């Protein structure tokens, strides 16, 4: 098992290198770069002589060197922990990411806990009560959840909450708490905002988990061993949870591979429309503005979480099911 994990970790390195290279060169593809966007902006403000500064600015930002050379500078600086400086707000990329990491993890792990914590039991309930009123109601709800993108659900909740309470739940804190220490008052204030994004994201996540659980459960419930167990006189609770549910877990564990990446990069559009101070919203704007170091660093972060997540889910699957082989 350890050898297996070791092998997987070794394979990750070239994969990561490939992702970095492809990501970096995709970011070079647009005809314009950050400096030409900057100069165009200056020109629109009447500062047409900014064009004269274009080359000097490129030199200062290192954008005048050939892409290959820049890639290697970036790559080795990255390994040394120097992730570069954001062109747009001229602060170190690490600062920006670390500043946004807590809020990102808080919202996404809450969303994850709610969608899995609620989705699984509801899925089991749905399966064991197939075609009963409860199941039909839950299925309807799940279809709505799967059908609507989470940002739309978020907008709906936003307006509904506003009409009901007059609160504008954009962001994750009232303005007066933004720079404040984490007192009880701030935590309560945080939850008074966070519930909206968490529910919106969890609603669609939950719908998916519910459907997957229900399908697997139904598949398992139809198998002969369930009949045997019941014939044996085992209590229904034991049949469902100890036997059927365990066997229905496989696809969920496979899905778990994406959870880590979700924690960093789920619900990007929801982040943007709800003004959440998360990594996702900054990733979106950095990409649009060709803020390459910031966008590049987040891309790598996502890539790493995807790979690690997949590794964890593979290991878990192997541990759960001895039939899965290590190769």
């Amino acid at each position, binding site marked *: 098992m350890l050898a297996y994990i070791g092998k997987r970790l070794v394979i990750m390195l070239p994969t990561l290198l490939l992702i970095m290279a492809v990501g970096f060169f995709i970011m070079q593809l647009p005809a314009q770069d950050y400096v030409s966007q900057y100069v165009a902006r200056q020109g629109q403000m*009447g500062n047409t002589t900014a064009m004269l500064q274009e080359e000097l600015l490129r030199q200062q930002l290192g954008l005048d060197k050939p892409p290959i050379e820049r890639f290697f500078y970036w790559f080795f600086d990255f390994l040394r922990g120097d992730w570069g400086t954001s062109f747009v707000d001229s602060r170190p990329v690490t600062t920006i990411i670390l500043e946004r990491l807590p809020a990102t993890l808080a919202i996404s792990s809450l969303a994850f806990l709610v969608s899995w914590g609620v989705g699984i039991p509801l899925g089991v309930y749905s399966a064991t009560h197939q075609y009963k009123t409860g199941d039909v109601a839950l299925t309807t709800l799940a279809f709505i959840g799967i059908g609507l993108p989470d940002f739309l659900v978020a907008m709906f909740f936003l307006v509904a909450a*506003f009409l009901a309470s007059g609160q504008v739940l954009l962001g994750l804190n009232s303005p007066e708490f933004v720079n404040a220490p984490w007192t009880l008052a701030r935590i309560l204030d945080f939850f008074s905002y966070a519930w909206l994004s968490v529910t919106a994201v969890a609603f669609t996540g939950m719908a998916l988990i519910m459907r997957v659980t229900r399908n697997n459960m139904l598949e398992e419930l139809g198998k002969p061993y369930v009949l045997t167990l019941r014939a044996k006189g085992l209590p229904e609770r034991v049949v469902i949870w100890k036997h059927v549910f365990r066997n229905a877990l496989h696809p969920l564990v496979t899905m778990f591979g994406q959870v880590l990446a979700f924690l960093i990069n789920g619900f990007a559009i929801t982040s943007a429309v709800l003004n959440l101070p998360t990594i996702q919203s900054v990733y979106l704007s950095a990409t649009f503005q060709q803020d390459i170091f910031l966008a590049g660093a987040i891309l790598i972060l996502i890539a790493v979480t995807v790979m690690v997540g997949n590794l964890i889910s593979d290991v878990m699957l192997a541990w759960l099911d001895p039939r899965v082989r290590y190769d």
Partner: protein
Amino acid sequence: MRLMTGRGSALASAIVGISLLATTVAMAQTYSEAPALADAVKAGSLPPVEQRISDNPLVLTPVESVGTYGGTIRDITKANLDWSKIILQVEPFARWERDLNGVRPNVAESWEWNDAYTELTLNFRKGIKWSDGVPLTADDFMFFWNDVVLDDSVPVSFPAGTVINGEPPKVEKIDEDTIKFTFAGPNPLFMELSSRAYYNSAQWLIPSHYMKQFLPKYNPDMKDTSEFDKRYTMDTRIQYTDMPTLAGWMVTSFTPGQRLTAERNPYYWKVDTEGHQLPYIDGFDTTVVTDDAVSQAVLLNSIAGKLDFQSREFNLADVSLLMENQEKGNYTVKLWDRGDFAWPWMMPMYDYKDEGIRDLFYTPEFRRALSVAMDRDKYNNVAAFGLAKPRQFALSPLSPELQTEEGKAFYDKWVNSYIEYDPEQAKAWLDQIGVVDKDGDGWRDRPDGSRLQMIVDMMPGDKQTADIMDLMKEDWDAVGIETLLNQADWGTLSDRQKAGEVMMRAWGSAAGWGLLSAPTVWAPVENAEWTMGGMSIALNYQSGGKEGEPARPGSALEKLQQAYSKAVQALDPNDRNAALLEAYQIHLDEGPLTIGTVGEDPTPVVVSNRLRNVPSVGLIGSWDMGFPATADPEQFYFAE
């Protein structure tokens, strides 16, 4: 010598007398200050108010009444902080008048031109101080000029409007408070142009005692000028809370993407007519919002009564909702002008690589046919909720040269030319010039029988433009012109425009004012994406014929370039206005040369019912005119 104390040279006005009177009244008084500052003086942490403000403070006449101190304005800005910048960073040499009728002294107390308008002597307000108490002197500007502009290792080149005939100006220090510019040729509009928004002279005024530490020349620890650049560029200057400012409020905290706060500058150098040091308002509490959330944020927070002063980010579609909820949110909606002459305007590119298309563009009947084929009332009702005005391409009626009787009469003719919806007339004109369906496929062809398609490019993300373009396509299709719409980003369009590969561009909200703001929208004279006519034709003019391609001889475009040359050389404001009207006459006679759709959209400004002294007119479309700073937020105040 021409002495200007109260007004800009171009636009002298009768208010001179009033403001001089106000100055005298204030001089006779002692000054008073905000309670918090008085406490600090008592505690000994701040010098008394008389020592803090300049020897001759600027007296602001309140819009309604003298106010009282206190309160924090709550507002919202996008992530690039543009709304905050235009409130907190507009302290240029001169500020525009609230009615935009010329400029008034600001950081510069007075200025004098020689008769040829080549030499400008500019006097900084004596005793004016940065927010840390260090005086602003001529040395600050000389530092900017010698160590920043003239130093090739700093990526800041000659500021806009200083280079004349390709020659940079000479800048000298006369005494502690006086500098002198010597331009290479007449530069009569320099004060007006340099007073636009936060990115002209407001940007050039930097505290040398603070900025020196970021230049390698003065500080060997600096390896390049990037730390300097971040503080110089207006993109990021506002983030540096330790950087001294001349503005009414200093930024005290900034959390990117979340919140910005500002509080009063104790050294602010403006007083009201009773000698109260301004600003009245203690500070700002600004929420920073992503571009995607901002229109929801301003709308909902207005209705919830959580905003005191806000404009810019509202959707036109939300105006009626905003109006309905005025009582609930305890605010009043003031409709300021957006100042845009068109949203969008259609720019045929006379340098398009296809000669056949160029021939058509140079044919007045073809452009007129396109123009009258457009049902502008429908565009207005569908895309702008009936709030805009159907109009031809014509500059803003607030432009100074359109303010005279003659100018107003001319404007009426111009703005209404060829806007009557008349598809039959359009077809007749097209038939007349031989643009008829020759191959029987249902679409009109070029006079030589080859295929004709109008391809219109635009940027994504501008709903009003996209909506109107969809409707316009129907209208042009209906008269037999096959129309294709295409969306592309700025960079792609820019490259294609430079290469003559854009046939026609629909440009979003645009404001242009005679010679003061983007003259290239009415004459192809600047090599910028927003030039009329086409970039290479403008480049040809700008480079003196060395680059690009010339406008066709005798064409309206060539006449416009000549008329522009004449207007910029006019020294007397009346001559200048006359020259501009002559130039616009070319648009009227041969036009439309670029085609207008609808424009003059109003901009809702949400003002808390507690907030006073906010003028009911303003122009907020182009940043150039500096609103809302031009409305003097320093004299806004909260009623009890």
